[in-house]
């Protein structure tokens, strides 16, 4: 291939299933672990965040309307697409995070497996979290978990791909849509993941990915009245986390605070993240003839 100039990719945002540049026209230079220029990523603005929330709101009811079986298949499809692009992700993670090829590969493996794990949850959440309730009266009473709605999330800085997948998958598996701010240090795998999402039959707008400064865009999402919940996993600054949690109180958003200790992303995720973004609806119906 000597003598041939490679064709580089333009890294943009992922909003409503499309890949727009930031409306602000801003970009930021992304360097690899050794400080060499990799790409100019879009620096998302407040307007981009709002557009992403609008897209997420529009997509949410349709996503929740899909059967759990269908959602599970789409999450599994994401794993399939990711598997097919393994080499590209390994390369991007290796360069961006400065880790060995082996560790980059292990992160991609874990990310694929995480999609598969959550895919299987889609039609089991209601069975594990729901119930029929033996009330003292002639009523049939049952409780079902339903999605909270639109969730705004901040993905951890590292691991850039596994962290993002670990945050996004439990949000959408139950029928929520999300706006996620990707790792600011290593944003490129996130945008490449968007290409995977865009080709997995995931309805546009269910996942919206912003690249940029979490401390800049995060507070706008935290105070946005059409956001129902906040996942602060990737916020490292306690002051910013508190500021966002305070803003969230204006509309009584559900808030998942940053982990108290550095999370072990390779551990079994458990149900905690799924449970953080579902509501329980309880239905009473009379019994009788």
């Amino acid at each position, binding site marked *: 291939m000597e003598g041939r100039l490679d064709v580089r990719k333009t890294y943009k945002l992922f909003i409503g299933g499309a890949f727009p540049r930031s409306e602000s026209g801003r970009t930021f230079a992304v360097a690899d672990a050794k400080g060499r220029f990799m790409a100019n990523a879009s620096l998302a603005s407040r307007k981009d965040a709002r557009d992403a929330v609008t897209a997420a709101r529009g997509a949410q*009811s349709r996503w929740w309307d899909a059967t759990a079986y269908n959602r599970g298949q789409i999450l599994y499809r994401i794993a399939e697409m990711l598997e097919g692009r393994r080499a590209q992700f390994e390369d991007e993670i290796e360069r961006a995070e400065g880790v060995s090829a082996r560790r980059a590969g292990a992160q991609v493996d874990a990310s694929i497996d995480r999609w598969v794990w959550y895919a299987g949850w889609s039609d089991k959440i209601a069975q*594990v*979290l729901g*119930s029929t*309730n*033996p*009330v*003292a*009266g002639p*009523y049939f*009473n049952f*409780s*079902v978990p*339903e999605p*909270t*709605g639109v969730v705004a999330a901040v993905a951890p800085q590292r691991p850039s791909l596994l962290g993002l997948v670990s945050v996004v998958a439990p949000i959408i598996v139950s029928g929520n849509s999300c706006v996620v701010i990707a790792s600011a240090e290593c944003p490129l795998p996130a945008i490449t993941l968007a290409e995977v999402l865009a080709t997995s039959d995931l309805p546009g707008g269910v996942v919206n990915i912003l690249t940029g400064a979490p401390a800049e865009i995060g507070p706008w999402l935290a105070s946005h009245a059409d956001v*129902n919940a906040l996942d602060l996993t990737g916020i490292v600054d*306690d002051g910013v*986390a*508190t500021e966002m*949690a*305070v803003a*969230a*109180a*204006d*509309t*009584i958003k*559900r*808030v*998942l*605070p940053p*982990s*108290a200790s550095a*999370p*072990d992303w390779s*551990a*079994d*995720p*458990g*149900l*905690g*993240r799924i*449970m*953080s973004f579902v*509501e*329980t*609806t*309880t*239905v*009473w*119906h*009379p019994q009788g003839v």
Partner: protein
Amino acid sequence: MTFDYAPAPESRAVVDIAPHYGLFIDGDFVESIDGTTFKTINPATEEVLTEVTEAGAADVERAVKAARTAYKQTWSKMPGRERAKYLYRIARIIQERSRELAVLETLDNGKPIRESRDVDIPLVAAHFFYHAGWADKIAYAGYGDKPYGVAGQISPWNFPLLMLAWKVAPALACGNTVVLKPAETTPLTALAFADICRQADLPPGVVNILTGAGQTGRLIVESPGIDKVAFTGSTEVGRQIQRAVAGTRKGLTLELGGKAANIVFDDAPIDEAIEGIVNGIFFNQGHVCCAGSRLLVQESVQDEVLDALKRRLATLRLGDPMDKNTDIGAINSPEQRARIDDLVKSGEGEGADRWSAPCALPDRGWWYPPTVFTGVTQAHRIAREEIFGPVLSVLTFRTPDEAVEKANNTPFGLSAGIWTDKGSRILWMASRLRAGVIWANTFNRFDPASPFGGYKESGFGREGGRQGLAAYVKQEVV
């Protein structure tokens, strides 16, 4: 032909109200260190019932410390099966003293004795009985079995003892100790509950009751010794609490306001629906966060429903809450009466048509006649804001889609009602309504096994059922 009712008052000889109450801390009634006193009043007669204590900062500190010590030394070390037995004891004593508690509740709150006797107090006992059984089975619920430690709890005035039970029973079952503040205007049954804890020989410090107003509540929420905050009350105070807790590692559950839609389709059993509408908004004078305060009626049956509703409302009996035939009791406080009045005036001012049931109001006390607004639009304040009184706003719809759209067009999401003969429509609606509790062909049913709580600005977390235990078990999210 009209029926006259002879007065049928419940006897108040069954209660013995002391002239003054201190605070219940570490198993004893003690005098305040730095608090003041205030009076609690019977809203039906304006009679001063007694003087209670407004706990100060030093009192809160003492109570939190007692709860911490009891948690460390006693309650967290006790096997679940023993905690269970204490809760069973409490349930039994509540049953034994149920008439006294019902009378006390009605005197302090103004709700009809029929409701405190037949709804509130039986549910209180049931709630302790249900959670007693969980105490040695928490690990089976699926949320882990690690309690938070000390829970700070603030309960409202509309169902004083029932809301205390919703907070205290699961907290103790899961192994927490509590500091609870009952509402300012209705402290008496919480103080009676303190005495019940003593009769049950509950270890000192496991339950601490601090009477007071907003400032006492704030001190509890902000105390560094509190691990978990649970609040039932207005959305505005809920916001302040969520802000105060932000950035701390305290757990938080909120059960806030509502503006529930009660949706009546043209195929509904109209007579049953009328009873459901009446129960939905006029139960407990409409002082119910999950009240069906917005009636959404399908256009084709609008006239039939409204005529039947007005006929039914004209038969409701408003008056002495202690009378066993009373349907509508007193408004809990003059402040609440003023709030209702303000919103009703806004409804008139914004052009909705007001109708109030023709009934005489007693000379003393605070009252409000059952009121219905028609010609209400979604923009009216009476369709958007929680009134927390016996005022119903009627809107109409044509299609199920429109009903869902209008029902969800509110920042709240606590409850909803659906009246239709069609089962498939109920389930279709139920999955689209953004509300935590949905009553189909019934309304305002409660049970300790049934989770209760809201979406959106109606708060988060559930009370009751297996799901309600999650509020009192500390979970780490990976």
